[in-house]
């Protein structure tokens, strides 16, 4: 049985952690061929070839794949699909954009955010924001899957798979890239960080989010935010942790001024240690926190930052 895995490549660079976690999930299904795409992808392909468990890497280098628009990437995957029973990817926004399109073109159902592989047709995935876990068995000849990174450990690197260049598929010319607004940051990436410090509505303003960022920097942590904080404009959308944002499972998650709505808990409850700081002792976040501190965050967070 063969698996085609769409690597996460951004502007020619492999997102190693996201890709390696999906490789771990995919090796349970068969020999893994990684597909790297981009305007340039030789470096990304070479890096993917080192991930343990990867049998082969395909490198499709063409300007039409430069910004990973859904239509050309989906057409490319479909053109390669004949050889594979499973077509998989890490559950990133890029893959969530592309993979359902692939599934529909192949006339198969999609399985998104899979958290466990039971067998080659049977998979576990969260529904209702993780309030229930459902095991489903696919009757389709091909299975199209995204794997939720937070529940798989990244495969190691030490392998040396062969890299093969492949040509581009036809350009459907349906869409074009205009611009990316990506905030440059020296902090770790949210979904792969060992420590995450998140702020909620209780932080109160964009300016006051600096105390969250200071604590994060002290802990070498990524910064997250609740939906309420993002909706209020205190934090950018790519910081959102939750059902509709990012799902994280760091070793340490510090929730500051976050009440703990179901949709936020869905994004962080698999963290190893959860710390909650909130002045409302009834806040639901305390029901999942290993260590809860009922305190005013404006006193406690700077104090904590200085004492760590």
């Amino acid at each position, binding site marked *: 049985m063969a698996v085609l895995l769409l690597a996460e490549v951004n502007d020619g660079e492999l997102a190693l952690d996201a890709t390696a976690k999906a490789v771990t999930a995919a090796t349970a299904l068969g020999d893994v061929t990684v597909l790297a795409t981009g305007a340039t992808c030789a470096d990304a392909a070479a890096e993917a070839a080192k991930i343990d468990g990867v049998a082969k890497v395909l490198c499709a280098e063409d300007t039409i794949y430069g*910004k990973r*628009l*859904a239509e050309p990437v*989906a057409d490319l995957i479909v053109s390669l699909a004949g050889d594979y029973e499973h077509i998989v990817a890490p559950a*990133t*926004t*890029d893959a*969530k*954009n*592309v993979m*359902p*399109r692939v599934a*529909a073109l192949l006339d198969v*159902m999609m*399985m*998104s*955010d899979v958290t466990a592989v*039971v067998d080659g047709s049977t998979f576990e*995935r*969260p*529904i*209702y*924001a*993780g*309030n*229930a*876990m459902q*095991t*489903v*068995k*696919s*009757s389709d000849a091909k299975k199209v899957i995204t794997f939720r990174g937070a529940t798989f450990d990244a495969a190691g690197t030490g392998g040396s798979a062969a890299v093969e260049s492949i040509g581009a598929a036809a350009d459907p010319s*349906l*869409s*074009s*890239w*205009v*611009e*990316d607004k990506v*905030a440059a940051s020296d902090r770790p990436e949210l*979904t792969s960080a060992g420590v995450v410090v998140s702020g909620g509505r209780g932080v109160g303003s964009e300016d006051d989010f600096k105390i969250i960022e200071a604590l994060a920097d002290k*802990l070498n942590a990524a910064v997250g935010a609740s*939906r309420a904080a993002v*909706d209020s404009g205190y934090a*950018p*959308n*790519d910081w959102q942790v939750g*059902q*509709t944002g*990012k799902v994280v499972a760091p070793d*340490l998650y510090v929730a500051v001024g976050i009440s703990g709505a179901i949709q936020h808990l869905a994004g962080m409850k698999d963290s190893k240690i959860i710390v909650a700081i909130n002045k409302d002792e009834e806040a639901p976040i*305390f*029901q*999942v926190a*290993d*260590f*809860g*501190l009922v305190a005013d965050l404006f006193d406690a967070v700077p104090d*904590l930052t200085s*004492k760590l």
Partner: protein
Amino acid sequence: MKVIVPVKRVIDYNVKVRGKADGSGVDLANVKMSMNPFDEIAVEQAIRLKEAGKADEVIAVSVGVKQAQETLRTALAMGADRAILVVAAEDVHNDIEPLTVAKILKGVVDEEQPGLVLCGKQAIDNDMNATGQMLSALMGWSQATFASDLDIDGDSATVTREVDGGLQTIKVNMPTVVTVDLRLNEPRYASLPNIMKAKKKPMDEKTPADYGVDASPRLEIVNTVEPAARAAGIKIGSVDELVEKLKEAGAV
């Protein structure tokens, strides 16, 4: 230009979800149901396009059980012009898969010839995040997912998308499928006069067979369980104590 907005009837987002004792799914009997929150944002956007003179007609479509007519009435009360209900299931526990919904929507799109389909990015019940992309694929159209800004200008639309690294703006050819994210707009509440008016707006009733679609599922549900609960932790009295506990746990 016509705009089609698919809307789904789901468990209300404030309701605590409970699994059925036999593991066959989530208990939906006698539970408050509402329009999927992302679909509300899509309806709102479609109405704003009409108010801005960029759309002539807004058609809400729902695929599911007969009770989804309540969801369609909500869309009509918000300002949609008419509705199409595709009755594809009798039991409220029978969730219609995104692939089937996309095929049925393709049938609707072929008939209605809209310039734009506005979908919620995912339904908060199955969390699959697939229907819009699948419809776009079946139509051979462009797609723009996770939209936080949408500007339609003649033959193309400029869409800002919420992606992992921040925001991405793309231009897509019309007709297109756009799936909407949370920050595109804030949906309006339907006023009482509009709720009354909505009762008189037209609602067609169809079946999957009308569109030549076989609604049988591809995924068999093996079981549904509640996730293991996290053990309750402890309350800490001070920042100093917290620092000590974190050090003990090897977390810092």
